[in-house]
């Protein structure tokens, strides 16, 4: 702790950039490293099991027959269709519109399919509530579908142990239950009209039936809060592109929000507008306990306890002139002066931006806070400008936790004969209601589980039915603004699974209907005239135009304040624990997805684990450093998990991500074919934090916790700061190291106001760069005559969401290597998002993200050193990597100043399951062992577009070529194109006054430029 103060003192002048706390605070880590000769790796011969685990799991091996000239390789067959479908060309990609759903909100997607094999998910650009970008999870869903760990068949556990099961048996069981009544359904909430129709049928047609919904991460408080304020539930549809001042109270609209994609591109619009002729730069305020993605890009961030935010909200409300009930007002007045002098500043900002400001509350906050927030939005004239409202489908339903209570009661009273669990996993993620859900389900005479995985809940049910993946089924959903979005299957169910619709139909219909018919039936009324033609159009577009159910006029405030408002303000002091959705696994449903497991967390850069995020201050109080185990105890439940000292974490708050510590078995496979279940990669990864989350915690959004130092240490795998060097230990203050490390040159940040001055910014950006003489080559350099592909990355709008990382992984068949190899520094991601902290305040630093991938240097240092010319330049300035020529000297990687080359240390793509092979992108070679690889600017896409254009006897135009990363980026931070075309977007961005090149002084002439980050901090009076 003392040393933290000290370093602050040392680097008080100017803002220092640093990578991780290990560098910043004076832990013993470094000294230990210096003393220990070979730290943390006891020499081991056999690489760890989990890695070999992975060899089996990921990828197909392709023999690079380059050198074996002559030998006849295995005979291959050509199996043509017997009759080829209309307009289907073998080997040509086709895209279909469909939809992906999470948190009962549908996102329109565009799925690319080769020969009937879906291989990529992109955003549906035509969709009204969508900008064509994608989240990491949406793209990873392809791998999810091909996941060999999915349950492959129904299984029925009878009293006398296991017995095989077929769908036929399951169907008849379902129908029987439907006839005899007393059916209770516990389903994941969904926006599907077809599903709610089936739900109504079931409630109507099955005697004594009940329908319950459960999702561990839901948005109840928003619904209830708006209901309190407006008299009926509403869904706020924000337009961040108009919000010059955005205040997020524990909200993460850019990452953990159903409309995050829309929010992201809107928010980005108000950052890039800083380059316009009348520059405007928005200001984002964030009040939160744990550093979120939005908090990371916030201009002003206030680390507050989740429990304190209601009071802050009330204070803000009072300051912005919202009429509060007397007692609350009194409470606010009497409340201790706010922790941070910035509340007033925030209020001032809001008032000075009437109509162009917006407040948002997070779903962890109680309904009262949402009521306050919307009261403020109304008072500040946000409604109609930056905010509109949409109707909520059957919003009258109770809160999820109460719904669980209802179900538990019914089970207790024996009113449930058959419990049908659809796409839910209560045994894992639901808090005990009196009894644990294992026992509750055990009480029910007949329990049937429909799910993608043979998971924790399936394990305690008599029946497990394998559900279809969303890419395999018919369905529908409503996007955030209510637009009806269609879902069509891209492939016949791999494991003959059935969708929720079909299963419910099996309950209520004698002849189970197909999903296709159900959906058509339900959507028929939406068709204006003849159904078939509009159905065709809907399928093509992926949505039904004009079905957004926005509320026409601003709702009037009925002013019903929740009774709990005052109590919400009476916060208990002490340490709190906050349960966060995981940035990769969300609530745990994606735990078996290798891409997402290996995706580093945007903030912590930890992969393959969740850890307890604690403040550095708390860390030094407890005397723990990263990876040390700490004991958490909440209302009797205990959990020991590794600590991660996260700068910016509130010192009284502990953040834990949900969704880890899964136990997915493969009973069916294990029983029927004795196949060792090695595909359940989620098993035993991370820590199950649901065990700490009881019903009260679900209601309050936090829980008070007692924390103590635990026994021992747990290795965490990060893709950054593997082993921090801490030169300050011997080289004095931080700035000196800063200078040594050039981080300040890599990521250039300029602090400005609402209207940044271009020339000023330009000056500062240049000033941040190194001073070097004019660069000349001793020889006449090559002149590029044709297209000159280039990329520019705008640090100003990069949120670090990591969507590009997964986009690249799925487009380029990048292998997953597993935790151990990752910890060894052998990650394969072609894009690395470097996260830097900025500023002197460990408790509240700024965050800068820098996506780093091959810069395609014109004077590429890697090329010259390759003895076999496996990496050479092409006429368009691309740094071609020829896998089949590579012999693996790794010299190129050594000589790459950006360290963006990746080497296959083992055969990462070995013995893939048949399904995994189907998931590969056929346009990209699957790399074998001993071969170097790296970003190619998606050269396969460049070539495809070029061939297409030339076949059509035309030249390429700007936008014809779009690399996967640029296509997926929610904020469009990445622009790609041809520098030879002066009007191309990339030429413009590279000419921007914010543009600079990384390590340009080496005269490597990178083709990738970065655009400096602009920040709009609130001026702080010193004192």
């Amino acid at each position: 702790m003392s040393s933290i103060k000290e370093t602050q003192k040392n680097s008080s002048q100017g803002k220092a950039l640093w990578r991780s706390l290990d560098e910043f605070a004076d832990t013993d880590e470094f000294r230990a490293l210096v003393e220990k000769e070979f730290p943390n790796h006891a020499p081991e011969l056999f690489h760890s099991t989990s890695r070999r685990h992975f060899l089996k799991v990921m990828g197909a091996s392709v023999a690079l027959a380059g050198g074996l000239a002559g030998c006849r390789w295995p005979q291959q067959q050509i199996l043509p269709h017997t009759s080829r479908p209309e307009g289907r060309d073998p080997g040509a990609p086709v895209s279909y519109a469909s939809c992906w759903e999470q948190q009962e909100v549908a996102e329109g997607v565009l799925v690319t399919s080769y020969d009937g094999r879906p291989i990529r998910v992109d955003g549906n650009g035509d969709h009204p509530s969508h900008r064509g970008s994608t989240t990491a999870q949406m793209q990873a869903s392809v791998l999810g579908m091909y996941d060999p760990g999915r349950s492959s068949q129904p299984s029925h556990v009878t009293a006398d142990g296991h017995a095989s099961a077929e769908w036929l048996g399951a169907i008849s069981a379902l129908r029987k239950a439907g006839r005899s009544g007393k059916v209770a359904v516990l389903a994941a909430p969904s926006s599907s009209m077809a599903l709610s129709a089936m739900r109504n049928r079931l409630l109507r047609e099955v005697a004594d039936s009940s329908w319950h919904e459960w999702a561990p991460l839901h948005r109840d408080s928003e619904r209830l809060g708006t209901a309190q304020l407006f008299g009926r539930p509403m869904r706020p549809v924000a337009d961040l592109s108009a919000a010059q001042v955005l205040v997020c109270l524990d909200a993460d609209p850019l990452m953990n929000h159903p409309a995050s994609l829309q929010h992201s591109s809107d928010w980005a619009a108000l950052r890039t507008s800083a380059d316009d002729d009348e520059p405007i730069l928005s200001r984002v305020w964030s009040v939160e306990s744990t550093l979120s993605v939005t908090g990371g890009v916030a201009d002003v961030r206030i680390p507050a306890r989740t429990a304190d935010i209601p009071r802050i909200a009330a204070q803000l409300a009072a300051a912005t002139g919202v009429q509060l009930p007397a007692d609350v007002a009194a409470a606010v007045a009497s409340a201790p002066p706010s922790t941070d002098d910035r509340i007033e500043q925030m209020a001032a900002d809001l008032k000075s931006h009437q109509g162009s400001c917006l407040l948002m509350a997070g779903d962890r906050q109680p309904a009262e806070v949402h009521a306050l927030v919307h009261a403020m939005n109304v008072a500040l004239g946000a409604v109609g400008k930056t905010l509109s409202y949409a109707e909520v489908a059957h919003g009258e339903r109770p809160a999820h936790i109460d719904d669980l209570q209802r179900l538990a009661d019914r089970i207790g009273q024996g009113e449930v004969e058959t419990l049908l669990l659809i796409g839910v996993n209560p045994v894992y993620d639901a808090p005990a209601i009196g009894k644990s859900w294992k026992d509750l389900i055990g009480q029910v005479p007949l329990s049937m589980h429909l799910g993608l995985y043979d998971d924790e809940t399936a394990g305690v049910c008599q029946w497990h039915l394998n559900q279809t993946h969303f890419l395999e089924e018919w369905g529908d959903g409503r996007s955030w603004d209510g637009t009806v979005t269609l879902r069509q299957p891209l492939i016949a169910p791999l494991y003959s699974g059935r969708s929720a619709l079909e299963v419910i139909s099996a309950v209520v219909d004698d002849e189970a209907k197909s999903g296709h018919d159900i959906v058509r039936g339900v959507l028929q009324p939406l068709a204006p005239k003849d159904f078939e033609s509009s159905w065709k159009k809907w399928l093509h577009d992926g949505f039904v135009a004009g079905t957004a159910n926005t509320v026409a006029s601003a709702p009037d405030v009925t002013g019903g304040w929740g009774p709990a408002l005052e109590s919400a303000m009476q916060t208990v002091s002490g340490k709190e624990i906050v349960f966060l959705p995981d940035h990769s696994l969300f609530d745990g449903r994606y735990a078996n997805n290798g891409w997402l497991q290996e995706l580093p967390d945007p903030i912590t850069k930890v992969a393959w684990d969740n850890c307890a995020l604690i403040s550095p201050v708390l860390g030094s109080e407890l005397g723990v450093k990263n990876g040390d185990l700490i004991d958490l105890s909440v209302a009797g439940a205990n959990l020991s998990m590794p600590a991660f000292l996260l700068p910016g974490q509130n010192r009284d708050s502990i953040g834990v991500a949900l969704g880890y510590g899964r136990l997915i078995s493969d009973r069916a496979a294990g029983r029927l074919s004795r196949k060792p279940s090695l595909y359940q990669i989620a098993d035993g990864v991370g820590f199950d934090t649901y065990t700490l989350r009881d019903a009260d915690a679900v209601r309050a959004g936090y829980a008070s916790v007692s924390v103590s130092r635990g026994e021992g240490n747990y290795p965490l795998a990060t893709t950054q700061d593997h082993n921090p060097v801490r030169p300050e230990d011997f080289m004095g203050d931080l700035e000196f190291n800063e200078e040594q490390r050039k981080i300040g040159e890599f990521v250039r940040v300029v602090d400005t106001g609402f209207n940044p001055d271009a020339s000023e910014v330009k000056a500062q950006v240049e000033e941040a760069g190194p001073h070097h003489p004019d660069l000349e080559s001793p020889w006449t350099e090559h002149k590029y005559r044709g297209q000159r592909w280039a990329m520019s990355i705008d640090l100003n709008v990069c949120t670090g969401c990591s969507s590009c990382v997964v986009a690249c992984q799925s487009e380029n068949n990048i292998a997953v290597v597993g935790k151990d190899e990752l910890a060894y520094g052998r990650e394969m991601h072609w894009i690395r998002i470097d996260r830097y902290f900025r500023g002197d305040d460990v408790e509240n630093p700024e965050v800068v993200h820098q996506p780093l991938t091959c810069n395609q240097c014109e004077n590429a240092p890697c090329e010259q050193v390759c003895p076999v010319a496996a990496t050479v330049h092409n006429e368009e300035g691309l740094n071609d990597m020829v896998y089949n020529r590579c012999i693996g000297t790794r010299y190129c990687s050594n000589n790459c100043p950006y360290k963006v080359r990746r080497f296959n240390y083992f055969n990462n793509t070995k013995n893939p399951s048949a399904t995994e092979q189907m998931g590969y992108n056929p346009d990209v070679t699957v790399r074998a062992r001993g071969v170097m690889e790296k970003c190619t600017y998606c050269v396969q896409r460049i070539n495809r577009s070029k061939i297409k254009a030339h076949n059509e006897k035309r030249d390429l135009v700007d936008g014809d070529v779009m690399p996967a990363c640029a296509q997926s980026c929610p904020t469009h931070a990445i622009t790609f194109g041809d520098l030879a075309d002066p009007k191309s977007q990339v030429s413009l961005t590279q000419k921007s006054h914010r543009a600079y090149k990384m390590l340009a002084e080496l005269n490597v002439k990178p083709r990738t430029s970065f655009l400096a980050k602009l920040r709009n901090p609130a001026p702080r009076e010193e004192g």
Partner: protein
Amino acid sequence: MIKRLLAALSPVVRPELTGNAESPEVDNTAYSPDSRVDLITGANDNTTITDKVCSIVEQKPTIGWWGFFLLAFSVLGLLGIFVPFLIFWGVGTWGVNNPVGWGYAIVNFVFWVGIGHAGTLISAILFLFRQKWRTSINRAAEAMTIFAVICAGMFPGIHVGRAWFAYWMFPLPNQMELWPNFRSPLIWDVFAVGTYFTVSLLFWYMGMIPDLATLRDRAKHSVRKIAYGALSLGWTGSNRQWHVYERSYLLLAALATPLVLSVHSVVSFDFAVSQVPGWHTTIFPPYFVAGAIFSGFAMVLTLLVPARQLFGLKDVITLKHLENMNKIIMLTGLLVGYAYSQEFFMAWYGGVKVEKFAFINRAFGQYAWAYWIMVSCNVLAPQIFWFKKMRTNIWVMFAVSIFVNIGMWFERFVITVTSLANDYTSSAWDYYSPKLADVMIMLGAFGLFFTLFALFCRFLPFIAMSEVRGVLADQAHSRAAASARHSSEAAADSASGS
């Protein structure tokens, strides 16, 4: 058995074990202005020298030899286990990662190439400088060179990710119509090390031809007769043969001299031509060459000090020889130390951030321990040779030679690993630590080296007899001259006296 073995290996001469007559340690290091000191001590003439050297080959191998050979051979076995394992599983069985793409393999490669420099240097350069004292040690040193280069050559082959395509580094016609990239230092390496091995081998073999003829003419067993007969190509010691032979040997020496300097310069290009801070240094070629000679001489000492005891060659490989080598070790040690200091000076003087950081980090960063091992072994240890007592003490010089070997290995480790571990992009920094395979293959290389050396001692002339005979002749002449001078002076005195 073990005790006997140890006894046999112990430097105390055991004639019944070594099969050689007692050869006393004579201090011939004293400098006397009037008479030149004898390089070959004791009552030795052509006959005794011939018998001494040939007997090593002709007599039954001693237990000492067997012990040494078996030990070395079993260590060599490690290669047999771990190299196939490596080829089968992949380079990941090593500790290399991003960003440290080069680990032990390259460290060992550079280390062994360095070792391989003393031999040719002693034979060639000292030959050109007419340094007579080379003759007693050059044969063993050259042999060591060959074996060291064999060890070195092994590593580039196995360190690549796809060893079975390593031949793509040679300019061979192929169906791809592709050629290697001659701008790459690795290709320069292929040519440099290849040439160096070939030339050293020729040089070594050519030097042996007359001695092989001696063995041929003394051989009793028919297999030996045929073997040595074939190897000596029908040498009759005719002066017309000697004439061409001498000239050819001289030319080879003249060629080997620039070669020996070029090889380690080229090896240093692997680093110097890159742009990794800590590698990208113009001082590297001379720095590497000096280091190579340094380590080479150390290894020669490590081998010869026990060998001269075991084979009773103290009067052929005399203290004088050892002392001269120690002087060279001290000199090159200082050169290396100078290079170390210069790196820091240039980093400071050049004022490049990353450069500065690279070297500060080297000395004080996470690999400081390696750096200081290097400095203490390479720069400090040899300083003890300032004292003649130490310089001429068998035990001290042996210890120092071991230290230098260790230190030079670490020099390569420091250069290779620390520079890569923390280069430009700080976010990619990582710590390199070896796995079991790294260590085992490193040991295996030593096994290979010592096995080959043991076989050499056993089957080939350990000392360049024909050259030593020449030295003996000169000694005889100078002794005669000296005595003549004395007698004439004496006569003059008596004359004047009367």
